[in-house]
């Protein structure tokens, strides 16, 4: 049987969700029998393969134009898209920026911080442009499964993947794995 292809990526997040994913520990070996990891922030391949993957996993909030592009590419190339973590599902810690506004946040971070002198707000073409509002991933692409948690428990990742491998599509996580924090 062909292996199930998985791609992962992170948007505006802290990488904690990926860490938590790796916390499934030796069970990852068991997964590798049935699964092939393609692109991810921790492997060499940085974009999901053109021919597509079965499962796409996104961590982090939509906070700038680059995040939008990455999310859209993942959506186009993944048959089933999972948003993991509070940032990808609700906006999370990143969305605290909404309370003061993007301009004020940039000024505070790059110009007004006590340790900064002669600071500039980065404005390179290479960088995505910050959006006015930070949101979860589902504001720009359709999401098939939400796994909230800050970060989600390793068991939540394992449960979701095991269900998908068994041909079942989870709609909501079981109560013991469904946590906001």
């Amino acid at each position, binding site marked *: 049987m062909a292996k199930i292809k998985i791609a992962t990526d992170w948007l505006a997040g802290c990488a904690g969700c990926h860490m938590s994913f790796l916390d499934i520990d030796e069970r990852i070996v068991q997964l590798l029998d049935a699964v092939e990891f393609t692109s991810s922030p921790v492997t060499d391949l940085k974009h999901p393969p053109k021919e597509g993957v079965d499962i796409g996993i996104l961590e982090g909030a939509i906070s700038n134009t680059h995040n939008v592009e990455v999310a859209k590419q993942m959506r186009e190339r993944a048959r089933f898209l999972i*948003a993991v973590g*509070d940032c990808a*599902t*609700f*906006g*999370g*810690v990143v*969305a*605290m920026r*909404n*309370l*003061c506004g993007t301009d004020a946040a940039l000024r505070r971070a790059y110009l007004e911080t006590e340790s900064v002198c002669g600071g500039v707000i980065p404005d390179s073409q290479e960088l995505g442009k910050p959006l006015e*509002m*930070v*949101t*979860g991933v*589902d*504001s720009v692409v359709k*999401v098939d499964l*939400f*796994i*909230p948690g*800050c970060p989600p428990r390793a068991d939540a990742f394992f449960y979701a993947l095991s269900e998908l491998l068994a041909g079942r599509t989870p*709609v*909501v*996580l079981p*109560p013991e794995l*469904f*946590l*906001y*924090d």
Partner: protein
Amino acid sequence: MEIVTLTITINGQTIKAPFGSTILQAARQAGIDIPTLCNHPALVPVGACRVCLVEVKGQRNLQPACTFPVVDGMEVQTETPALVKARKFVIDMLFSQRNHFCMFCEMSGKCELQDLGYRYGIDHWIYSTYTKRFPVDATSPYFLLDHNRCVLCSRCLRACDELPVNRTLGLGQRGADSMICADGIAPLGSSTCISCGSCVQVCPTGALFEKHSAFMGTDEKMSCTKSICSFCSIGCGMTIVTRGDQVQRIESDWEAPVNGGRLCRKGRFEPLYDGRKRLTTPLVRRNGKLAEADWDEALQIASEHIGRTDAAALGALSSGDATNEALYLFQRLFRRELGAAGAGLLRGGISRLTGMKPGKLSDLENSDLILLIGADPTKDQPVASFLIKRALDKGAKLVIVDDRENSLSPFAWQTVPSGDLDKLLVMAVQASRPVVLHGAEMTADAAKSLMQLGKKAVAIALEPAGNGCAARALGFQNGLPSGTHRLLYILLGEEKDIGENLQQAIAPDAFLIVQASYTSPLAEKAHVLLPSAIWSERDGTLTNTEGRVQRARKAREPLGESRQDWEILALLADRLGRKMGESFDDISAQTVREVQGKEI
């Protein structure tokens, strides 16, 4: 009155419900769960949140179960797909109204909104993230009000209105901008708030939470111990919440017969912020200075001195806040076994109005006339003042007899000087359920006049000391029994000091043994200082001002080397060759017999 029972069906199950109950009450009685948010069992329901929606056959719209009364034959559904959809909509709206990012919220893991989110699988938000920033009011010394987490359920303001009857909280602004506010506009810290903490205890979210226990862990990491507050003679039931050996917070016990969910600042917050220095090891005077000793040495010195002092020269004085067991052992050891002239109380007990019906605090609720005489419960027995104000809400009239300023005066129908009692007696005779609440300042003349009321009125004494009622029953006298005391044993407990008059009554050359929890000017003077456990560290019974005997339980072990009062006394008695009892249970049983057998 006959209680009419109605028959209704909920989810096809036939159940009985008393006339006048709501669908929610009927369902809960039958063990059927309907989710709620703004409803709180101890508060009048208002139907504000719409989480408890149910389908009632024949009703066009979904109805809130918490306010909808049952009628005979009613058919109710509580969890149909349409209801789940409606409820999810309501919960989604609640989540998107303000900042509900749980990962940095103190209440995460013990929040009723969060529980609803879990129950209905809210794993992302349908409505956009709320971006308006609300203020945080941190001005109360004891708790925080974070408007960003508030769901406007109004539980807090109903609690403030119904439990302490203080009416500090209200609702300001409009619509989505509505905010809970104190006195219209004031910061909580400079408002009329009396820090009873009722609002904090009922808040279902992270909008109101205590500073002392904030971010100290979720409920599963905490242990709860039901106990009794001993900081005044009301004897409120409370739950001591601990993590390890740290007391995190004190909550009121909703089931407690006396206070039914109320506590005051003295009981809920102040004990957590007592900054005095604890005594943690026995101390004995060596070369004029207090020096550390072990229990063995301290008890040996104490018992030797007691043993060689004449009974007539033996003085014994105790705090009236100590447990029944401690007070029992104290008077038994000094008075009965050692033959001292008497055992005295630091703050005196008060005499009862004989010939009148002894009342219970619950009598206040249905009273139509309350005579308050010689007491200022707002200061001294705060929960009693809450109960009085509650009775006034229900139509009772308050008449205060006080020659000085009384904190309840603004609520009184009349305030009269103590010389003017006759007019009151006429009023009391005309009332149908008069209650006389009397305190330590009642004059003997006033007592005599009041007793003319006889069985017409019920009388409730407000004892000045926490356990004063038991002390009276056990035969303690007020103040230091007269005589020349060459040795004085003072059980100070947690009291601050003994007061000027007593201080002066102590002979300068008397040998002083003090049993106390904290350092104090008196403790400094002791020759032997025995460290005793505090409220959170002691087991025993307490007798409240109505004569109700209740069980206090320890929530943590006594700090350092300190020991419980009863245990110190039992050890001392042992040294003196007087056996008091086999075990705590044995002593406690003797005590309860002794206290309850007496007319209080």
